[in-house]
C-alpha cells in the first residue's frame, strides 16, 4: 500500500526487461510445453506481485469499511484509501487530491461526466464532439445524452492511416460546440492523438475537453496540468492494477458544479426527508462502499509505475512496435491497419483470405494471446473497411522473442489456410 507498506521507490536506472518479467507471475505460465505470449495488453494488462500482494495483504490484515468506524482498522483503511487518491493525483499531475474520483473505470468516468457535467449544459442546437476512433465507451454515453437533451453528436473524421483529421476538427468547432471528448491513444489503431492541440483549439472557444486515457496511462507519464484538459479518465486494469477500479480527474471547479450521479451512503453530508445535503467532491460521486481493495491495488500499481524508467520503457515499446511491424509485413498478404506516424505499441492487422477470428484461434493453439474482432470500436472498422482485425498490443514486459513467437504462429495460419 502506498506510503504505508511502500517499498523503496527510487527509479530503476535503464530498463531490464527480464527483471521486469519476474515481477509478473502469470508470465511464467507454460501450457502444453509453450511459454505464454501475452500480447493482448490493450484489453487488459497483467499484474505484478506488488499489486497482487497489496490486495492480499489488505484482505488478510487491513480489511475494514472506510469513513465509518472509530476503531483502528477502519481508520487505517480510510487513510490507505485516501493515500491512494493522493498517489493517483501525483501520478496524473493534478494539483489537488480532491480532483480525483474513484470509479469502476474509464467507462464509468465517461458516463459520469456525460450525465453530470454535460447533460445539464446542453440542449437542442448544441453539439458534442467525439472522434471516429473512439471506443464504444466514449460513444454510447454521448448518444444517451444526445437522446436525452436533443443535442447533436458530431464526429471528427479520421484519415486512412488512422489519424484525426485536424482540419475537419477545426471546422467542426463552432459556437454550437459545448463539449469535446476524444481518446488519447486509440486501442484499436494505436494512434497517439495530438491532445495538446485539441485542448488548445477547444479552449480558444471556451469548450471543455475530456480525454479517454485508458490506453495512455500504462505507456507514458501523463500530466493533466500540462495537457490542460478538463477531465481525464483511466482504468486500473489496463495499467497493471486490479479490475473494477479506475479514476476520473476533473478540474475542481467543474466537480464542484456537478450534481451527484448516484445517491447513497458516503456521498452525503446530512440526510433528512425534508432535505439532504451532499458531501463535496469527490465524495459526492462515490456513493456506497467503494472498491477499497481495488483502490489499494491501484495504489500499488501507481507506485510500481513510478519506480520505472519511462524514457527507457518508451524506447523498449517503440522497438517492439517497429520490430513487430517489420516482421509482420514480411508475411505475404498481411496488411497493417493503423499506420499513423505517432503510434503506441499496438499493431492491428488483417490477412488476405483469412478472417481475424481464425487467426486468433490458430495463435491461441500456439499459446499466443491476441485479440481479434472489432475491439469495441465498430465505427473504426467500418471506416477502414474491415470487418475485424487481429491485434497485438504490447506492454513493458513483452520481448522481441514474443514478437518472433507471434510471427511464427502467423506463418502457421498461412500454412493452415494454404495460401
Amino acid at each position: 500500500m502506498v506510503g504505508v507498506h511502500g517499498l523503496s521507490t527510487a527509479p530503476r536506472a535503464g530498463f531490464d526487461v527480464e527483471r521486469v518479467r519476474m515481477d509478473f507471475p502469470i508470465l511464467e505460465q507454460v501450457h502444453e510445453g509453450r511459454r505464454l505470449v501475452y500480447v493482448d495488453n490493450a484489453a487488459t494488462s497483467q499484474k505484478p506481485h506488488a499489486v497482487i500482494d497489496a490486495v492480499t495483504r489488505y484482505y488478510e490484515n487491513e480489511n475494514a469499511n472506510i469513513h465509518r468506524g472509530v476503531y483502528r482498522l477502519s481508520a487505517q483503511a480510510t487513510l490507505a484509501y485516501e493515500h491512494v487518491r493522493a498517489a493517483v493525483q501525483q501520478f496524473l499531475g493534478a494539483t489537488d487530491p480532491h480532483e480525483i474520483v474513484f470509479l469502476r473505470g474509464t467507462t464509468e468516468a465517461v458516463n459520469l461526466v456525460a450525465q453530470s457535467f454535460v447533460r445539464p449544459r446542453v440542449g437542442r442546437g448544441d453539439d458534442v464532439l467525439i472522434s471516429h476512433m473512439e471506443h464504444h465507451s466514449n460513444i454510447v454515453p454521448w448518444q444517451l445524452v444526445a437522446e436525452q437533451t436533443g443535442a447533436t453528436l458530431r464526429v471528427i473524421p479520421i484519415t486512412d492511416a488512422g489519424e484525426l483529421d485536424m482540419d475537419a476538427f477545426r471546422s467542426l468547432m463552432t459556437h454550437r460546440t459545448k463539449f469535446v471528448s476524444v481518446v488519447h491513444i486509440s486501442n484499436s489503431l494505436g494512434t497517439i492523438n495530438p491532445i495538446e492541440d485539441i485542448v488548445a483549439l477547444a479552449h480558444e472557444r471556451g469548450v471543455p475537453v475530456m480525454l479517454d486515457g485508458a490506453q495512455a496511462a500504462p505507456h507514458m507519464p501523463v500530466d493533466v496540468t500540462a495537457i490542460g484538459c478538463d477531465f481525464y479518465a483511466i482504468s486500473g486494469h489496463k495499467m497493471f492494477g486490479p479490475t473494477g477500479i479506475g479514476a476520473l480527474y476533473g478540474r475542481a471547479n467543474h466537480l464542484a458544479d456537478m450534481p451527484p450521479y448516484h445517491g447513497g451512503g458516503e456521498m452525503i453530508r446530512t440526510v433528512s426527508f425534508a432535505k439532504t445535503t451532499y458531501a463535496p467532491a469527490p465524495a459526492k460521486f462515490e456513493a456506497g462502499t467503494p472498491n477499497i481493495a481495488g483502490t489499494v491495488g491501484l495504489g500499488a500499481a501507481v507506485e510500481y509505475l513510478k519506480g520505472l524508467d519511462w524514457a527507457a520503457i518508451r524506447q523498449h515499446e517503440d522497438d517492439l512496435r517497429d520490430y513487430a511491424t517489420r516482421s509482420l509485413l514480411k508475411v505475404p498478404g498481411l496488411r497493417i491497419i493503423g499506420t499513423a506516424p505517432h503510434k503506441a505499441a499496438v499493431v492491428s492487422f488483417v490477412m488476405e483470405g483469412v478472417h481475424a477470428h481464425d487467426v486468433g484461434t490458430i495463435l491461441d493453439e500456439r499459446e499466443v494471446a491476441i485479440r481479434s474482432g472489432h475491439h469495441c470500436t465498430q465505427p473504426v472498422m467500418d471506416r477502414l473497411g474491415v470487418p475485424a482485425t487481429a491485434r497485438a498490443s504490447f506492454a513493458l514486459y513483452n520481448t522481441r522473442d514474443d514478437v518472433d513467437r507471434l510471427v511464427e504462429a502467423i506463418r502457421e495460419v498461412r500454412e493452415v489456410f494454404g495460401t
Partner: protein
Amino acid sequence: MSDNLRELYQQIILDHNRSPRNFGKLEAANRHAQGSNPLCGDMLAVHLRVDDDRIAEIRFEGSGCAISQASASLMTSAVKGKTTAEANALFRAFQAMVTSRPSTPIDRDTLGKLAALGGVRQFPARVKCANLSWHTLHAALESQEGKKITTEREQE
C-alpha cells in the same frame, strides 16, 4: 499443426470457406432471415424458396470467419430439397453435435458432411460461429424475418 487445429480446419471446411456453395441472392425467395455476430464481425443473410413445405432453393450471403462461412455453405447443401421438418431435424442434430463434449460420438448417419464441423467442440469460443447460419435458417423457416439473429451474447 496440433490435432485440434487439424480437426477444426479440415480440408472440407477450408474448401467450403474458399468456394462457398449456394452463395448469392435468390430472386425467387419467399423466406429470409439475417444473422450477425458483431463481436466477430460475422454477417449472414439466408434466402429460401419454400414450396409445399419443401426447401426448393436456398442461398446465403455474407462474410465472416472460415467456420461461419463453411458452416453456412455446408448447411445450404445439406437442407436443399429437404422438407422443413427434415431441415429442423438436421438443425437439432447439428446443435446436439456442436454443444456436446468432444468425446461424444458424432451421429454421422444423420449429419453426413456436417459432421466435419464437430471440430469446434474443442474450441468453445467458436461454437457460435458454426451455429449462426443454422439459427438464421431456423428463423427464416419460422418466418421471423424481422428478428435479428445472433449466437453471441454482448460481452467484452
